[in-house]
């Protein structure tokens, strides 16, 4: 799961990094020598990407399958499943999808708020229990999800809390906080202190400097963290499975229906989410690359 922090870093064309350019070490002019690596590596990388994308293509293609019950063999092309997503099994797929969206939205807001506050405190203030707090933030990312899920479920059981939507949201907020802290912290640390100094020099009160200067500069990082938290929560299955009771989320729906065959409508939802997410990230990345190019050109 933790790797998705990386995904967040990439999602972060939104996290924006003009500092990307400075980070890059200077390059010596390259000597031209055509070696094995010049063609072997690109060929390998192409094959690897095809391999990575096969299941995505498969899921997408089978969202157009004119399947009856289970969506395993190809029976012909149709748009029906896209047009009538909610008509299967009394709308069970859509209900699960809706639950996932609500859970992801609420836990994203909660985790992003709590995580951003921690990130600011960690970078800007000195306090004693620093290493203990760092450890407390690191551990949830180093703990297997099945342990996190079973632990929370054991706690809810001991306290006698019934499992429902709320317990899922509590669980998701918990594991998202650390990822938000990591993502936002990087942004806070890379802020140019001169900008805040300028704000103070212009007689801004600490409060005004924070809300008019610091916070707007942090927004891209916070947005990236929120997107990451949303993605983590939306796709989480293991922790959800332990804390959901009878509530079904989209991944849980897929897991439960796996034994009797998944309807093509699940592929429709997954494909739609994929296209949307990809569009957001491609736009962010392209605009970041364009900005980097502009900066490079401006620098000569």
């Amino acid at each position: 799961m933790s790797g998705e922090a990386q995904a967040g870093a990439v999602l972060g064309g939104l996290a924006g990094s003009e500092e990307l350019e400075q980070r890059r070490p200077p390059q010596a002019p390259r000597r031209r020598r055509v070696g094995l690596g010049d063609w072997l590596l690109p060929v390998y990388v192409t094959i690897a990407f095809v391999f990575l994308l096969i299941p995505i293509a498969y899921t997408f293609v089978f969202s157009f399958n004119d399947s009856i019950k289970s969506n395993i063999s190809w029976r012909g092309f149709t748009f029906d499943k896209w047009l009538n997503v909610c008509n299967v099994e009394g709308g069970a797929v859509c209900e699960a999808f809706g639950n996932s969206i609500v859970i992801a939205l609420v836990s994203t807001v909660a985790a992003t708020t709590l995580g951003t506050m921690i990130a600011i405190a960690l970078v800007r203030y000195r306090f004693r229990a620093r290493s203990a707090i760092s450890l407390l933030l690191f551990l949830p990312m180093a703990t297997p999800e099945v342990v996190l899920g079973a632990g929370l479920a054991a706690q809810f059981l001991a306290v006698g809390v019934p499992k429902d939507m709320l317990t899922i949201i509590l669980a998701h907020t918990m594991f998202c906080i650390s990822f938000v802290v990591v993502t936002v912290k990087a942004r806070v640390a890379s802020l140019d202190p001169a900008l805040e100094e300028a704000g103070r020099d212009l007689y801004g009160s600490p409060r005004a400097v924070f809300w008019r200067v610091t916070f707007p500069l942090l927004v891209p990082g916070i947005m990236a963290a929120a997107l990451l938290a949303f993605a983590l929560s939306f796709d989480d299955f293991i922790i959800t499975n332990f804390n959901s009771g009878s509530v079904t989320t989209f991944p849980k729906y897929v897991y439960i229906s796996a034994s009797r065959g998944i309807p093509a409508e699940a592929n429709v939802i997954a494909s739609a989410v994929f296209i949307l997410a990809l569009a957001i990230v491609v736009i962010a990345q392209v605009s970041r690359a364009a900005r980097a190019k502009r900066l490079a050109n401006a620098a000569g």
Partner: protein
Amino acid sequence: MAFAAFATTEAQPQAPRKRSRIALLLLLPGILYLVLFFLTPLISLLLTSLQAPSEFGDIGMYDYAFNWQNYVDVVNAYWPHILRSFGYALAATVLALVISYPIAYFIGVKARRRPLLQSLLLVLVIAPFFISFLLRTLAWKQILSDESIIITSLKALSLLAPDAYFTGTPFAVIFGLTYNFIPFMTLPLYTTLERLDTRYLEAGSDLYANPVTVFRKVTIPLSMPGIVAGTLLTFIPAAGDYVNASRDFLGGPDTQMMGNVIEANFLVLLNYPAAAALSIILMAAILVLVGVYVKRSGTEDLL
């Protein structure tokens, strides 16, 4: 990156000591939340793992006790699952490293001067994250099922024995784990390789090292932080995973891992102490392995 992110703890240049009340207010809600919903559950788990069945209770009723026997019982009952979990996770981690390193090298070093290509390749690496993890795994199951085109044509070409099958085998589970965690390996590798100063590589070849030696003595050591982070990010979730090994996905009855038995004991058999004891064993084993590994690989500052 996730593991390195907490490395830069001390040495905050201009952190003012004043206004520590604000720091407390900023920290308190989040930290309290983690204590309540992360730390206490771990303690609950530990207590649950020591529970004994209620004397007059129904199935699923347990009393707090000090029943160390639970640990002995689960190890006796599930030692193959425990070994399998770590074996599969190790195999998947090594495979993912071998597959990902060239990808990360290409994106981070070779594609360096083309920011657009670099960005698009990175998007492709994380693209699998945008489609449900479970559907991805199911897609592989169907692509590689006995009736699928790939398997039937391999059999027709006699490249595969007529009675051979793929899904349900340990190989399929390791394949699934490897596939699912390749992005987790590639991204941290990319992050370090992207910063690799290629002048060191040139210095190596100027000193008459052949490309293999340069790779072994210069590139690998310089990318060690990425290798450590990537292997941890792959190994930890892989060891606890139970989707790939599940019977409805890529696994079979003989490929069940620790996650599967924890799930079964907790959610089906309602044997909470056994599930809790197994979780504690998994967590302890991972913490010990991670600690030793990070020490041995000489990148202690990661933690």
